[in-house]
């Protein structure tokens, strides 16, 4: 497809940063949050000039690819029918500050993006843009112009890998294919990969040793073995 229209749900720290990067990369960016369009309009005109503000429904309807930059626990509000056939890039994380002190959504046996894929059953979900701090999306990228930072993604849909990789590349990162969506667990908070804005080589090194970490050991304990 030609450059897809990218919709972003959420215009907070992450959503507004991704909107800025998307516009810089030459994409048509449409964005929504819980505020009325009239208010978000002037906010985005400053935070990400060039992005178009719509209602959340309009964003889902008009976008080819939708980035979820909302609190994880809000996923239940997403309408699976409206999302049907679309690519959804899940940038959410279970974050106790907004999702509550106990994670009742996902665990070490089922990663949060798998929960979202089950909910958005007719969509093509990839986990992406979740493991780097919103500030480092700009700081670590800007200060390493010649050494792209690895942005990992995971999906069960091989057909969307080229599109996801192209978006990640155009946003300024080196795509790193983790494989099936269940491997997205490696990117969740608590993992040694979470929060990392490092090169592909460094990222690979960390993945290779993930089961040496306390997080990896917890995975083995919970699942009776490594993720296969």
């Amino acid at each position, binding site marked *: 497809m030609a450059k897809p229209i990218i919709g972003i749900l959420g215009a*907070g720290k992450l959503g507004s940063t991704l909107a800025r990067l998307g516009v810089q990369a030459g994409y048509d960016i449409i964005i929504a949050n819980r505020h009325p369009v009239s208010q978000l309009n002037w906010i985005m005109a400053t935070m990400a000039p060039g992005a178009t503000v719509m209602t959340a429904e309009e964003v889902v309807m008009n976008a080819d690819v939708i980035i979820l930059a909302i609190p994880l626990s809000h996923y239940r509000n997403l309408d699976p029918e409206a999302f049907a056939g679309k690519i959804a890039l899940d940038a959410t994380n279970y974050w106790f500050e*907004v999702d509550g002190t106990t994670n009742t959504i996902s665990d070490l046996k089922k990663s949060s993006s798998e929960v979202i894929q089950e909910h958005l059953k007719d969509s093509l979900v990839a986990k992406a843009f979740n493991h780097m701090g919103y*500030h480092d999306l700009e700081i670590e990228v800007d200060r390493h112009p010649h050494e792209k930072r690895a942005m990992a993604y995971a999906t069960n849909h091989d057909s969307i890998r080229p599109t996801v990789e192209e978006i990640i590349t155009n946003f300024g990162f080196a795509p790193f294919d983790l494989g099936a969506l269940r491997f997205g667990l490696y990117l969740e908070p608590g993992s040694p990969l979470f929060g990392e804005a490092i090169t592909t080589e460094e990222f690979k090194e960390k993945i290779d040793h993930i089961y040496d970490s306390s997080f990896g050991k917890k995975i083995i304990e919970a699942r009776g073995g490594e993720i296969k």
Partner: protein
Amino acid sequence: MAEKEKYTFGIETFGDIGFNEDGTQLDAGQALRQLIKEAKLADELGIDVIGLGEHHRSEYAVSSPEIVLAAIAEVTKNIKLSTAVTVLSSDDPVRVFERFSTLHALSNGREQVMLGRGSFTESFPLFGFNMEDYDNLFEEKIAMWQELLKGEAMNWNGKLTQKLTDTTVYPQLPKGETIDTVVGVGGSPDSIVRAVYYGYPVILAIIGGEPSRFKPYVELYKKASDQFKKPLQPLGMHSHGIILEDGEEAKRVGWEYIKASMDRIGADRGWAPMSRDRFEFEVDKGSYYVGTPEEVAQKIAKNMKDLDMNRFDLVYGTGGQLLHQRNETIRLYGEKVVPRVKELLGGE
């Protein structure tokens, strides 16, 4: 001749517990008494504000900043007594009012409350609040705060706060006086918009990366004033720093203590430890004000100018540090850095 721009320069601390020269750590009581001495020094040096953060963690001594500020009030003359921040979301606005109107009386109006959502979240379970209500709690409580500041008998029907019927909160402020209120903001556009909506000045926490990346936030602050037809309030920033005559020593101290502090917080939040090259970057181009007085002054002046800032608060003692390092940072900030920044900015 045009009137000279007026700037405000403060110091802030979260109450990081310092270390003796022999490397032993102070106990919490010693750390609190040390803080009073440091505030007294800052006042003598003419520093405008001291801001104390509220934390509920082992590495910080200050959980009740207003009590410490009241003690500071007794040994200082001019310095403004601020929090940095008061975690309003997990506090009771009525009690915050009572504490600050008390401080207002005791300090003859030198108090300032810096309201924030808090980047640490220990206070939520500690005081029995649900993290799920993080946003709504702040939204409702800042609205309640504004009502309380009117100082009149109050009617309030909150969802997450208490109901008040024709209730006056004491001690009342003297007629025509108010509690100086500012809002501390991290990286959320909504937080800036909200502060402007309520008409409070904003202090941006710029603790990583090139400060220039906050330009959109500064623009948003100005634009929000237009949108809500509110007078443009002064804007401030806070950042970590260590100032020593020996710049290399300052960097060594920074690498030891600022890194330790950031890594400790990062471990809780699942972030990676700080790398040496990131630290160097923060010192050279980023948000750490670590070096000689001249280096730090140049950097503060440049960033205040770039971001159109009216106030700069230096967070000192990050990670604890040796007492003489804390002391020298405050002394050099007051004696050399602040006058030099004013000179560079051509203001006072």
